[in-house]
């Protein structure tokens, strides 16, 4: 496959990476010999290649565009140390988006020793478009022809020798998921880095015929300004396209710095290269002239110039792909992918299958999580907690310290972990399996029409579904929505998906307030219906708020719709278990713990620190009570929501603790000032002693659905949106809505029922 190799003998081909420029681009080159840039179209297995080479575990999934930002890793081969820089996945390098600009600038100005392009063998045509653009910029390109296993499965044969000959750069077939071909890939990368192989890319003339004269003129000027520049025509094209970064590089002479170490052939065309101060000065005068020419020429070339370049590139990509890849002469009688697609998106089976699958996922989660949840609770709260107290007594810690640390920080954290961990550890892997298989994009496909009517994207169905597990994870899942407007909508409304932390609250309140209204044999059904009703209300609110947002506050945000349905891939169960637990579960849990610990301390202090004979809690409850009563709740509930903002899981324990403390009934609970939970009968007794009515119960269920997201989620929204404004909106919008709804319900209730 290394047919067009060339063993260099001269020193010219020594590795000459541009350390200074790389440093400026944020790559620390200490202790590394070579830099390899990793590029490729989204969803070509770029992350898989990265992980396989570096041993890091980035989350990979069957979605276009998983890599957000830039990752770096290192590996060693042949006694040399390599740094691998994972650039954003892009379809082209024409710098029309920030991602494309980052990738392009890194390859052009960073001058990595090797630019590795990961190419999806099953979508050769589209991927070659990027390769053709790469080889216009740099010589040192290695193509990794990935997903060869998938190509074979589809009966597709790719002739990598032919491809390498047509492109003029090494092509290595691989299947990164199973690590096949990676050793050879490393060898070739090493050979290119050390100069053993010198790729001679075949550059396409991508300019449309109408502008050839303009390109010739400008390229000639660029060439004489920077003798030895291997890609003068490309630079000329970029200047005609109004690429300011390239114009700057021409102006500052930066492009001239890039001529060494590359393209000696073109350098040989010129007799001698004299670099005197006068030359430099002459260049400067010249560079202004070149830019002036470019500006004048731009008015001459047609307006759709940019697109014509793309058409030309794609035509060339199609030609090369056609020669290299041969499809099976006749269509196989049975195309598995197509058959699955026909079924899962059919009018008759599509929706039913979807509901069945998700019901199954939820059922496994709920029924499977109860047992480990009980164990964890017994262990963390039942065993370790008293044991810690005993230890504190032994060490004779002062009461406030042991209270703060054990009753506050430890207990709240233990509570969150035992409620949160088991369902997430079941839900996320199941979900990830469906994702890995490729089913989830089909769900988005089926549901898009409904979401479209609300001004949203079909993929929001998936972030919403994820939100039923955890809203913070749901927010992260909005990354798959590649349209800014719809992604923002999905983030701002994710909170209306009733998360794992709020289900227990709903179930408890529904059981003791609503279930008890019905005859005993119906109690279970009625309370279950009430909880499902609340969850459905959440879904309705998602649509309604999405609709309202897309027409008001978010009007003017960019919207671009496209939904790629990737081929089905056999899920890798163990890999999925591992990454989804590390990546989603532990990650979310860790953030929750980080937020829950200080909240535990705050709850303890509020309940136990006395000022002038009264707890801080009692002051705050007195202050919040009028508002609470107005909206059919009370001051205790509001205070619980304020101090338990980090995690919805500890709202009920906090309410119980505060109610017992204020009402002074010591019949239930471990003692005042400590979080506790008791059986349903005693809970009802405690709450009724605290003045709760049916209205309080109903409004608590409503408020639990419609209030600000927990601080973990808010932090995630801030991280993902990068915007303070939208984080504030995400907090205040549901809170305001919650107040409005509970207020309205309370007034109408009082008018009709009378109390």
């Amino acid at each position, binding site marked *: 496959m290394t047919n067009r190799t060339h063993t260099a003998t001269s020193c010219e081909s020594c590795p000459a990476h541009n350390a200074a420029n790389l440093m400026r681009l944020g790559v620390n080159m200490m202790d590394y010999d070579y830099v390899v840039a990793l590029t490729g179209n989204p969803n070509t297995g770029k992350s898989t290649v990265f992980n396989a080479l570096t041993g890091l575990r980035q989350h990979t999934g069957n979605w276009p565009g998983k890599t957000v930002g830039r990752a770096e890793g290192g590996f060693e081969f042949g006694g040399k140390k390599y740094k691998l820089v994972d650039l954003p996945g892009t379809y082209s390098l024409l710098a029309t988006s920030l991602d494309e600009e980052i990738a392009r600038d890194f390859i052009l100005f960073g001058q990595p020793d090797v630019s590795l392009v990961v190419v999806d063998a099953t979508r050769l045509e589209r991927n070659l478009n990027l390769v053709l653009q790469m080889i216009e910029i740099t010589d040192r390109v290695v193509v990794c022809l990935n997903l060869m296993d998938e190509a074979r499965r589809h009966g597709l044969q790719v002739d990598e020798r032919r491809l390498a000959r047509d492109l003029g750069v090494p092509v290595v077939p691989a299947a990164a998921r199973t690590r096949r071909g990676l050793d050879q890939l490393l060898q070739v990368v090493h050979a290119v880095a050390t100069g053993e192989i010198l790729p001679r890319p075949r550059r396409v003339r991508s300019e449309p015929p109408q502008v050839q004269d303009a390109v010739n003129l400008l390229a000639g000027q660029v060439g004489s300004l920077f003798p030895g520049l291997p890609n003068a025509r490309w630079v000329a094209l970029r200047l005609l396209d109004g690429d300011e970064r390239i114009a700057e590089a021409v102006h500052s002479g930066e492009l001239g710095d890039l001529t060494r170490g590359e393209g000696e052939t073109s350098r040989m065309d010129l007799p001698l290269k004299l670099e005197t101060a006068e030359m430099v000065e002459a260049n400067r005068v010249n560079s202004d002239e070149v830019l002036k020419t470019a500006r004048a020429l731009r*008015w001459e070339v047609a307006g759709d110039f940019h697109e014509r370049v793309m058409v030309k590139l794609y035509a060339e990509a199609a030609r090369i792909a056609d020669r290299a890849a041969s499809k099976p002469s006749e269509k196989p009688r049975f195309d598995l992918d197509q058959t699955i697609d026909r079924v899962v998106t059919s009018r008759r089976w599509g929706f039913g299958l979807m509901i069945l699958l998700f019901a199954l996922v939820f059922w496994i989660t709920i029924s499977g999580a109860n047992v480990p949840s009980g164990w964890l609770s017994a262990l963390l709260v039942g065993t370790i907690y008293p044991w810690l107290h005993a230890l504190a007594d032994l060490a004779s810690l002062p009461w406030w310290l042991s209270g703060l640390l054990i009753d506050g920080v430890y207990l709240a954290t233990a509570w969150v972990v035992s409620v949160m961990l088991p369902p997430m550890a079941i839900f996320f892997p199941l979900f990830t399996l469906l994702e890995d298989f490729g089913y989830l994009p089909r769900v988005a*496909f089926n549901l*898009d029409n409904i979401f479209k009517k609300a001004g949203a994207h079909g993929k929001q169905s998936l972030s919403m579904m994820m939100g039923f597990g955890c809203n913070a994870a749901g927010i992260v899942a909005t990354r798959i929505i590649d349209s800014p407007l719809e992604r923002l909508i999905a983030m701002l409304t994710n909170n209306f998906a009733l998360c794992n932390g709020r289900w227990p609250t709903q179930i408890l309140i529904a059981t003791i307030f609503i279930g008890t209204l019905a005859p005993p044999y119906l109690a279970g059904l009625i309370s279950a219906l009430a909880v499902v009703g609340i969850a459905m209300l959440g879904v309705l609110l998602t649509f309604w708020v999405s609709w309202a947002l897309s027409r008001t506050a978010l009007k003017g945000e960019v919207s671009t719709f496209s939904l790629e349905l990737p081929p089905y891939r056999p899920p890798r169960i163990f890999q999925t278990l591992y990454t989804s637990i590390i990546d989603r579960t532990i990650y979310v849990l860790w953030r929750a713990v980080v937020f829950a610990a200080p909240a535990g301390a705050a709850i303890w202090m509020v309940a136990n620190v006395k000022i002038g004979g009264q707890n801080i809690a009692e002051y705050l409850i007195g202050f919040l009570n009028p508002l609470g009563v107005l909206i059919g709740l009370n001051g205790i509930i509001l205070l619980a929501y304020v101090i338990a903002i980090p995690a919805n899981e500890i709202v009920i324990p906090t309410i119980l603790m505060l109610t017992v403390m204020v009402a002074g009934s010591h019949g239930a609970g471990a003692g005042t000032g400590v979080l506790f939970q008791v059986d349903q009968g005693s809970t009802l007794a405690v709450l009724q002693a605290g003045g709760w009515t049916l209205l309080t119960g109903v409004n608590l269920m409503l408020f639990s659905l419609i209030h600000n997201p927990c601080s973990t989620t808010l932090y995630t929204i801030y991280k993902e949106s990068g915007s303070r404004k939208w984080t504030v909106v995400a907090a205040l919008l549901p809170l305001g809505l919650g107040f409005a709804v509970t207020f309205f319900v309370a007034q109408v209730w009082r008018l009709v029922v009378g109390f």
Partner: protein
Amino acid sequence: MMPSPDPLLSLLLAAALVLMGLALFAPNHGLLSRWRRTRRYSERALLEDALKHLQHFESHGQSSGLHTLAGALEIPVNQSVSVVGRLQSHELVQMEGGEIRLTPVGREYALRVIRAHRLWEQYLAEETGFAEVEWHGQAEEYEHQLTPEKTAELARKLGQPLYDPHGDPIPDWKGEFKPHAGQALTAMPVDTPLRIVHIEDEPGVVYAQLAAEGLSPGMEIRLIESGPKRVRFWVVTGGYDGFEEHLLAPIVAANISVVPVEVQEISHRREQATGFPLSELKVSERGRVLSISPRLRGAERRRLLDLGILPGTAVEAALASPSGDLTAYRVRDALIALRREQTRLIQIEPISEEFA
């Protein structure tokens, strides 16, 4: 527990609060937005608008006096006197007889404002989701707020565009530009292939009508009938739903500028009348993209290019969504779902089986 407040009273109070909030903060008719609108028309904006008006007249070879200025800015004549006085004191204009003339400095200033205006329109078209009819109004406001640095940054981000979305040239930072070569549609002979190069965005009423017709620069049309009562033409490429016919009053049609399409440019296309929108393609049928409407612009257009959907691309309708509207197409071996509102703006031709 404390007694709950009277429910009826609370409801009434809340309703009153909501109404008050609406009166204050409603987006267009609220007191706050009205107050901001009056403040917006500041002294600076008035002077800059005056310069723009003078430049506009100058470039059309007309002369401007106090009355035309007052008319253009919708201010009383005595106020236009003070405006001209201010401009004179800054040496931006000079009076020659009853005529107001721009000084070189004044012309440069005017072009800078025009540059900001058109760049902002281009920004709204390419990078936001605002509707066409909102561009001009927003740009009228922003042109006075953009500093030279911000203007340069905007131009850089947009890739130094040459024309705004209406087809007007954007002066570069040196104030240089090349006006479009178009002529009014009403002045063209019938039955020549034409391309729209410019659509005048003032007055707003006329523009709204043109925007509602779905016309935009870049579309190729064929003039069928041109008379004093009506102008009739077909959009050949880039309209909605294929080969569509438009009927306009001459006064509206005069705001469209066109250039004749050179024969060489269309020669690579086969018979154009065979084109139809992608949305018409039935499942398992194949077609080849002829053109993508200029109405698909900005990020949406770039996405299509990224996915490899551009003139010459073969597409096959593969799956229809069970809820309708969405269809998945096989494009360059990938399966890509697009909405109907997009596919009706993509023109294709059928691929006959022998070529397929």
